[in-house]
C-alpha cells in the first residue's frame, strides 16, 4: 500500500482563524500521506481533526486561512487549483461525509432526488439510471425500505438514516478518496458495523483511500490501518492501528486509560492530566 505513490500528500498544513481576540490556530503544521488505505484521525473536540479534513477540500469556513508547504492529490496541487477544477474534484474524486446529516441535506427536496442529482452532476446518467443507482446504494447502506427512504424528506428520517443516506450519496460516485468526519457516530453500533464493512470493502476491493475522522479510539484502532492522534492542532503521534495499545505519547496513553472497558473492571477511571508541554512538545 505504502509502496505506491500516495493519493494525498499533505505537508505543514496550517489553518488559522482571525478573531476579535486574536489569531486562533486550529491546525498548526500537520503533515501526512494517505494511500489506498484506511487512515484514522483521532482527537477530542477542538483538536483540529475536522478542520484538517475540511482544508483538504478547501471547505474551510470564512475567514479561515489555509496554508501549507504542499497539499497534492494525485499530482493536482490542491492549494492552487482553480475553483472550476475543485468543482470536478469535490464529490467526484474526493468525497466527504460530514458529522451531521441535518445540515448537509436539502430540507425541501426528497432524499432520493438529492442522491440521484448528485450522481448526475458527476456522470452522464439518465434520470431512470440515476434513480436505480440511488435505490441500489440505499439498500447497500442497509436501509430496510429503500423506496420509502427515496421518497422521504430529510426531517422524516432518523439521524442514523440521514447519515446512511449521505453515505449512499457520497459513495455512489465512486470517489478515489473519502474523507469521513464522524460518519458513524449517530448510528447504532450494529448499523455502524455494517456501514464500516461497506467502507472497508471499497478500500480493499476498489482501492479507495479513506480518511476516517473520529473521537472513538477503540473504533479507529479496530477499523483503520494507521492512526494519527491530534492534540491542539498538531499530530502528536502516528502509529499502526494494531499498535495503539503500545502508544508512547502521554496524551494517547491518557485517552486510552480514560475509556471504560467491558472486559476490564476498574473502580475509578484514569483522568487525563493535560501537560502544557504537549502543546508544542515533540511528537511521539
Amino acid at each position: 500500500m505504502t509502496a505506491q505513490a500516495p493519493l494525498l500528500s499533505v505537508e505543514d498544513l496550517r489553518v488559522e482563524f482571525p478573531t476579535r481576540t486574536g489569531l486562533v490556530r486550529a491546525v498548526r503544521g500537520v503533515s501526512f500521506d494517505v494511500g489506498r488505505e484506511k487512515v484514522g484521525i483521532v482527537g477530542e473536540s477542538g483538536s483540529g481533526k475536522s478542520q484538517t479534513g475540511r482544508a483538504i477540500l478547501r471547505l474551510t469556513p470564512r475567514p479561515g486561512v489555509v496554508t501549507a508547504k504542499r497539499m497534492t492529490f494525485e499530482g493536482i496541487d490542491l492549494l492552487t487549483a482553480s475553483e472550476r477544477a475543485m468543482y470536478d474534484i469535490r464529490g467526484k474524486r474526493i468525497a466527504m461525509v460530514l458529522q451531521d446529516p441535518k445540515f448537509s441535506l436539502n430540507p425541501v427536496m426528497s432524499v432520493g432526488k438529492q442522491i440521484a442529482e448528485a450522481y448526475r452532476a458527476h456522470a452522464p446518467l439518465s434520470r431512470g439510471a440515476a434513480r436505480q443507482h440511488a435505490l441500489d446504494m440505499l439498500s447497500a447502506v442497509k436501509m430496510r425500505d429503500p423506496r420509502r427512504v427515496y421518497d422521504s424528506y430529510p426531517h422524516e428520517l432518523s439521524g442514523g438514516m440521514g447519515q446512511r443516506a449521505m453515505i449512499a450519496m457520497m459513495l455512489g460516485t465512486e470517489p478515489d478518496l473519502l474523507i469521513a468526519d464522524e460518519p458513524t457516530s449517530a448510528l447504532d453500533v450494529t448499523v455502524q458495523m455494517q456501514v464500516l464493512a461497506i467502507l472497508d470493502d471499497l478500500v480493499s476491493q476498489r482501492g479507495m483511500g479513506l480518511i476516517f475522522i473520529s473521537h472513538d479510539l477503540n473504533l479507529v484502532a479496530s477499523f483503520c490501518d494507521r492512526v494519527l492522534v491530534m492534540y491542539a492542532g498538531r499530530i502528536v503521534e502516528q502509529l499502526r492501528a494494531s499498535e495503539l495499545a503500545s502508544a508512547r505519547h502521554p496524551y494517547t496513553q491518557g485517552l486510552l486509560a480514560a475509556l471504560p472497558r467491558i472486559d476490564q473492571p476498574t473502580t475509578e477511571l484514569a483522568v487525563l492530566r493535560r501537560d502544557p508541554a504537549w502543546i508544542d512538545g515533540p511528537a511521539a
Partner: protein
Amino acid sequence: MTAAVRRQGRLPELDLASQAVLEVESLHVRFGEVHAVRGAQFSIAAGESYGIVGESGSGKSTVLRAIAGLNPDWSGAIRVAGEPLGPRRERGFYKRVQMVFQDPYGSLHPRHTVDRVLSEPLAIHGIDDAENRIERVLKEVGLGPAFRFRFPHQLSGGQRQRVAIARALIVEPQILLLDEPTSSLDVSVQAEILNLLARLRSQHGLTYVLVTHNLAVVAHMCERLAVMNQGRIVEEMTVAQLRAHEPGEAYTRQLLRASLGYDREAARAMVTFD
C-alpha cells in the same frame, strides 16, 4: 432515610438489598400509533445502580421519561418506595427523584447564572438554606464557588454537566434518573463525570437508573442491566454476566459483539431483530 444519615456514607448492605425503591410493572407507553414501550418490568433496590441499554428507538429513554413524569400517556404501574404513582407527579416526587439529561447545552437556561439554576429547585421545594446548600453542592461536583455567578456559555461541556448534576442533587433526592449523561462529552471528560457520579452515589447512598447506548459505561457504573429492543426488555442480566460474555439472548450477544470494535466477519453476520 434522612439526609444526615445519607451524608455519612454508605448504608448497610443488608438494608439496600431488602427494599425495592423503584418498581416498574407492565409499563406501556404509546405515542399515537407507535407502541414505544411494550410491557417493561423491573425492580431496583435502594442504593443499586441499574442500567437500561438499547439502540435508538428501543424505548429506553421513554421508560425513563415515563418514570420522571415527562410522558403522561403510560399504563401499568410505577412505584417509588412502595407508593404507586399517578399520571401526574406531586411536588414531593421531585424531592425524591431527579433527572440529568444528555445534552448539557440544551438543559441549562442560557441566560440564567449557575446560582439561579441552583436556587430554583430550592425555591420550588421551599428549602431556606440556599446559601449553604449552593456552596456545598458546587464543591461536591468539583466546581467551587468561583463558578457560582457564571453563565452556561462561560462553561465547558463537562462543567455544564457538573452544574446539571448539582441541580439534581441540591434537593437531596434518593433516586437519580440519568439519560445518556456522558454521551455528548469527550472521552477524558466522560471519565471525570463517571468518577463524580460513582463517588456521589457511594457518599449519599443514591440509587441510579442509567440509560445509555454504551455497554462499557453500563459495565463500569452498574450492577445489573436491562437490554431493550423495539420497546421490550429482551433480557435482564448482571454486569458480571455481561463481562463474562454470557448474554442469554442473541440480540444482546450481537450488541456486545458490535460494542467490542470493528470486525469484518462479525459485521457480515449482523442481522436485524424485529
